[in-house]
């Protein structure tokens, strides 16, 4: 069946619009466009009607934007970009280690959805867009994509794509947790992963206490560790847990399953930390106690993810029937 004209545009923009604009402006404009296109006598007339209708819809939507409502979030986003730029530039200037530099870049990305939420933005899509915008703008302002570096077009494009790939899941995850997202599996899974990452990060920061590292440095690394653990738990732990939750009902049992699966996360973490499998094995053989202490955050985080992940409805109903 042929799709009536304007349907695709409507589907594309409706989630981003306030309900009043959608009902008062978008729907009547699309309905009139469809009516006009349907009653056109010739193909040329129909095409003209569709073109005119689309132009009118776009113009109406632009006019519907209330500047007063958009100013505060826009100012907040630019302030976050500025803060991120300042942090990254300072970190680069001070020649700090990569984890602190990554934290400087990740901080505004993680904070943006929370700030937008405080300013009244509820939709997860807008929070995601705001967070991603902050990430990409901060990368541009800090000299990514050759703005200050003078790299070629293809190098810039490659950097842009890599940054987009890295930041998109992070922005989406934070937006899901912070936003008024439907309380479904995606929200619960992402929340569980972030909870586990938070626990693991706390364990890492506490483990560094005896090493005499200043508290400010440890706290400054928080975004990096949260992001790192979130990625590790999502890639190595979450798939097995999503299958396990179909059969396991109790949060405690699911936490034990997560603990049983945590060696995969541990191996991935060890590989990232040491660079090669040989170096991992060498560390395990020569400094087993240190490796054991190092693995505590992974185990604690895995337990927390399993504990927070809700069992599926199927397993729950099966449990209550029995």
């Amino acid at each position, binding site marked *: 069946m042929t799709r009536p004209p304007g349907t695709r545009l409507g589907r594309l923009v409706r989630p981003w619009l306030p309900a009043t604009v959608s009902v008062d402006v978008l729907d*009547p404009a699309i309905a009139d466009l469809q009516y006009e296109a349907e009653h056109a006598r010739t193909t040329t007339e129909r095409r003209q009607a569709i073109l005119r209708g689309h*132009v*009118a819809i776009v113009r109406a939507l632009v006019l519907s934007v209330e500047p007063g409502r958009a100013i505060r979030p826009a100012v907040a986003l630019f302030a976050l970009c500025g803060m991120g730029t300042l942090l990254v530039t300072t970190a680069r200037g001070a020649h700090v280690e990569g984890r602190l530099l990554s934290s400087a870049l990740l901080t505004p990305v993680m904070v943006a959805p929370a700030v937008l939420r405080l300013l009244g933005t509820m939709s997860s899509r807008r929070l995601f867009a705001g967070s991603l915008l902050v990430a990409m703008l901060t990368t541009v302002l800090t000299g990514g994509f050759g703005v200050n570096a003078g790299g070629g077009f293809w190098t810039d494009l490659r950097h842009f794509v890599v940054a987009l790939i890295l930041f998109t899941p992070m922005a989406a995850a934070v937006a899901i947790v912070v936003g008024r997202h439907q309380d479904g599996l995606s929200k619960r899974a992402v929340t569980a992963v972030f909870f586990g990452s938070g626990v693991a990060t706390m364990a890492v920061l506490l483990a560094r206490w005896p090493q005499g590292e200043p508290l400010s440095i440890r706290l400054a690394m928080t975004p990096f560790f949260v992001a790192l653990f979130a990625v590790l738990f999502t890639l190595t732990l979450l798939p097995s847990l999503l299958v396990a939750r179909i059969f396991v009902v109790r949060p405690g049992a699911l936490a034990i399953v997560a603990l049983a699966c945590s060696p995969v996360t541990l191996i991935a973490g060890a590989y990232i930390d040491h660079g090669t499998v040989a170096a991992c094995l060498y560390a395990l053989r020569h400094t087993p106690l240190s490796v054991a202490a190092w693995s505590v955050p992974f185990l604690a985080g895995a337990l927390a993810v399993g504990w927070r992940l809700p069992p599926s409805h199927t397993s729950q109903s099966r449990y209550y029937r029995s």
Partner: protein
Amino acid sequence: MAPPTLPARERLVLELLLDGPDFGLNLVARSDGALKRGTVYVTLGRMERKGFITSEQEPQLPGAIGLPRRIYRVTPLGKRALRAWATLVRALAPEHGT
């Protein structure tokens, strides 16, 4: 609460709707270019929020595809606002011979 204002475009919409309920696209066609297609829906939405007009969806025929059109009609408040505006214009008009 501030009294509702009545800009020229809204007056024109009210005048057009006094002839009977109509669709946004028809209002544009009947306005001789005074109303634009890109702005009429915004104006109509604003007028509806002010209470000058009301709207409802056109009943859709069975088998029809696409969105139902929205038909607009003037409310008693809209009629009163238009009358008040006409009275104001008459009151402020310079008298003949002065």
